[in-house]
């Protein structure tokens, strides 16, 4: 249950960005989260309203875009999709692969309401 800590970290960033832009409200938050980040999107969505209460992002829509698990094989060079607990090359079956996507935990995009100055 570290999702609440993650939400807190998210809100620290969101509030800072909202302040930097003079925003009065955060409308939408887009995250990109891979299964190998160790963060469960459903738990993050549940924890968000608790963490966001009373902040400029209280009413923001939290959207989580899942990132696929993909690996590149060191042996044959193929880039294939993989399961989080089986990061083998989809082409040659080799285990000497590198993760190229799937462990992201990113704040990707924000939509803010900024009063006309």
């Amino acid at each position, binding site marked *: 249950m570290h999702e609440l800590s993650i939400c807190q970290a998210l809100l620290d960033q969101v509030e*800072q960005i909202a302040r930097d832009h003079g925003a009065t409200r955060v409308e939408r938050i887009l995250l990109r989260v891979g299964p190998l980040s160790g963060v469960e999107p459903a738990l993050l969505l549940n924890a968000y309203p608790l963490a966001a209460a009373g902040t400029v992002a209280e009413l923001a829509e939290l959207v989580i875009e899942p990132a696929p698990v993909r690996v590149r094989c060191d042996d044959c060079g193929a880039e294939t999709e993989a399961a989080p607990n089986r990061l083998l090359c989809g082409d040659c079956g080799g285990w000497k692969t590198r993760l190229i996507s799937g462990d992201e935990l990113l704040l990707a995009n924000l939509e803010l309401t900024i009063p006309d100055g």
Partner: protein
Amino acid sequence: MCETCGCNITQGNEHLVQGDGKLARTGDGRAAVTVLKSLLSENDHQAAHNREHFDGQGVLALNLMSSPGAGKTSLLEATVEALAGTLGIAVIEGDLETENDAQRIRAKGVPAVQIATGSACHLDAHMVHEALHRLDLQGVDLLFIENVGNLVCPASFDLGQHRNVTLLSVPEGDDKPAKYPVMFRAADLVLCTKSDLLPVLPEFQPQRAERYLRELASVAPFETVSTRGDGELEPWLHWLQQELAAHRARLELGRSIRPAIQPDGARLHGEPGGAAASGDHHHHGHAGMHAHAEGAGHHHD
């Protein structure tokens, strides 16, 4: 510690993202900001700072992770006994409650600081930083950070350690790497502990545990150890000596090291983390995000 690493200056005044003020407006008057910043960048920043502190003191910092009861504290007790008089050791203990583990370590004559996390299921870089203010690293070669017993959350937080060691004890079952891929993928060394129980638990096959580990594309050594009996800690003690020698050689060259697998945020650390304006948020913002995310995926340092 702050005299040496300067954290008094940076603490609390390091801002995450600076906006550039040029924002695109959407039809309904909203402004879209592309950020592309790890959610844990604040933690990662603190972790980097902790690592600098360790490097400045010539200390190799190891993060020990496992489920509760896998034998982290017993391993440390045995390690302290085996290395007594040859290496300086210090320990940071993380638990939800009690000073029990720190007391066990202190009883062996080694300085130990307890972090009671309350309900937090993991240590983070800030907690470790706070503990470092209570720990004198003078004369210390090895710092062990015993994380909260938990195979899930600790894997996501960089503490500033140089290496991750994950313990898997025989009674837990040999398929733990397949069940907890995030944790075992993060390991630079997997120690199969309580190997003295293998004769009574034949269903645990070390080869199978290692195969599950390889299926996570891990090249980490897999070693079987026991804190009971003689000589069964050898692979662990050998690894420690090797890592310490390698770390010292790196420090001589002014370099440091991080655990082999870094969370996404750390990989993005070198990029300018600015909020960029995007034309149309549904298209440009999105495309930019993909480009960055995939670009970031190529950096494995």
